[in-house]
């Protein structure tokens, strides 16, 4: 098969799934769409390499994660401000319910490693072993991150559901 055609097929097959995963990772729908499109563009610049990969979706996800990580470094301050609630993070996305936007906002408050493990396991449906392989960490570490991540998410969501006065005070901090 022609490499461009392979990328085109992968584009139709995986684009939306990848956007959903990167949305959870980056907390921004616009950013998610952009890094996923960047991953496909990179696939097209190395067509021979893309044809040789056994798992096109995995390759594209890895590339998109790498793009997001690089941008993350540059935007570290923004991320810190966002996590400290000095600026808002819950971007409203047409078609995504407020509860799910709240979940994305809670994901943004996890540390990077924990967030990646949660996204790969719960949104990309990877096994714990595959998550470990993707992140280059032991299986036990992934299990710990998932456990810690779920607990923190529940706590963050509970915090966000707390009385309005608390949220108002935080937003002015």
């Amino acid at each position, binding site marked *: 098969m022609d490499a461009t055609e392979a990328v085109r097929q992968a584009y139709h097959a995986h684009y939306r799934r990848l956007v959903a995963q990167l949305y*959870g990772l980056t907390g921004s729908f616009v950013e998610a769409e952009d890094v996923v499109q960047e991953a496909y563009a990179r696939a097209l610049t190395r067509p021979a390499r893309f044809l040789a990969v056994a798992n096109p979706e995995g390759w594209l996800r890895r590339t998109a994660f790498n793009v997001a*990580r690089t941008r993350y470094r540059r935007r570290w301050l923004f991320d810190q401000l966002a996590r400290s609630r000095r600026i808002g993070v819950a971007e409203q996305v047409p078609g*995504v*319910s407020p509860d799910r936007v709240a979940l994305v906002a809670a994901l943004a408050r996890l540390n990077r490693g924990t967030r990646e493990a949660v996204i790969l396991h719960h949104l990309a449906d990877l096994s714990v072993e595959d998550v470990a392989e993707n992140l280059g960490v032991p299986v036990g570490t992934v299990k710990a991150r998932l456990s810690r991540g779920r607990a923190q998410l529940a706590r963050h969501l509970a915090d*966000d559901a707390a009385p309005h006065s608390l949220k108002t005070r935080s937003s002015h901090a």
Partner: protein
Amino acid sequence: MPELDFAGLRSDAEAAARQPEFDAVTHRVKTVRRRRAVVLGGVFLAVVAVTGAVALTAGSPDRQPGPAGPPALREPTSLDLGMGLGGTVEGYGDHFYVLRNGQLMVSEDQGRTWQRREAPGVTRFRVLGPDLLVGGAGGFMIPRPPNATAKPTPTPTGTGYQVSTDGGRTWKALRQSERPADAVPAGTRPLSCDGDECRLAVVDPATGILAELRSQPALDSPAFDPGSTGEGLWMTGFDPATQKPAVASSADRGATWQVTVLDGEAPRPNPATMYRPYVTTFDGRTGYALFVGGGDTRVYRTTDGARTWVRTAANMPGGAFLLGPTSVATADGGHLMAVQTSGSTRYLTSPDGRTYKVVDLPGATGLGAPPRFLGPGRLQIGDREHLYLSDDGRTWRAATLP
């Protein structure tokens, strides 16, 4: 309480994703290729422009002199103008620059007075020397707003970069020489650089010609942030053999490099990991390497120009939330960074990287912006409305903004 409904999130997000035609991706390939072409050193176009003597290089000692005549020049198609956090102003020494409403404002007296100059087509720029500026339409893709219904925002292509060697009075197209530079020209600093394909590049302050440095430090995934150092030329990255974080330093303006591996750090687990240290030095000898992300905050200190590093017993105050990742070294060998505590933004200082305390900076209260270098011996803190300057990192004074 909302539940952890990942299946619902996935379903909503997949349905909400707006999938453009595949052609949109193929068009984007050109931009990716252009970026690669530049950072890899690419294939030079045989566009020869006789612009006078190229003072950048005189050829390597271990190579035969090149043929007589000027080197081939080409127009760079992409530059990384975005590494590191930009400051309130860009600048070097006494000369400051800021874009306000599309107008370039220039001060040549540390912000006391400002003059209006033109910078057509420049929306992002970096200052490499007091009068040396490189600018363009930007180095990042600009995503389309989620609710945009009009035509997509034009994406900067990376072409059309310009250079000014006279403080923004005049501009001309930036050209890149095929002949590498032996060293960073005196009184200037290199362009920022970040990532697997990062190559240090400099601009000659007389001719305005861009060239890569001949000698590049042996680092994987290197990064150079000009706002983090005053004197000295330091880069960070990973040791190719061990994949442990490493710091490269040059005592001869980039002609030769010394790489020191931070052996106490774990190797990065895979090439995607970018938890590099952020390094800073005021005088080129005493400095800090700060790790944030990927574990606890860790601080290393050097007093010999980044050749040897000692992990300090960093004692970060509880509840302090770093507004980093950048920090700066101060003239007295101390360490300074912005920090958020409960309800306020202040600064974290240490005389030696061992113990830290939260303080307000005399003369620069109420801001949470990270301090950044404006070339050797000058630091700035600011936001859109305020600018504070320091010559030592300890005492600060207000400056005016246009």
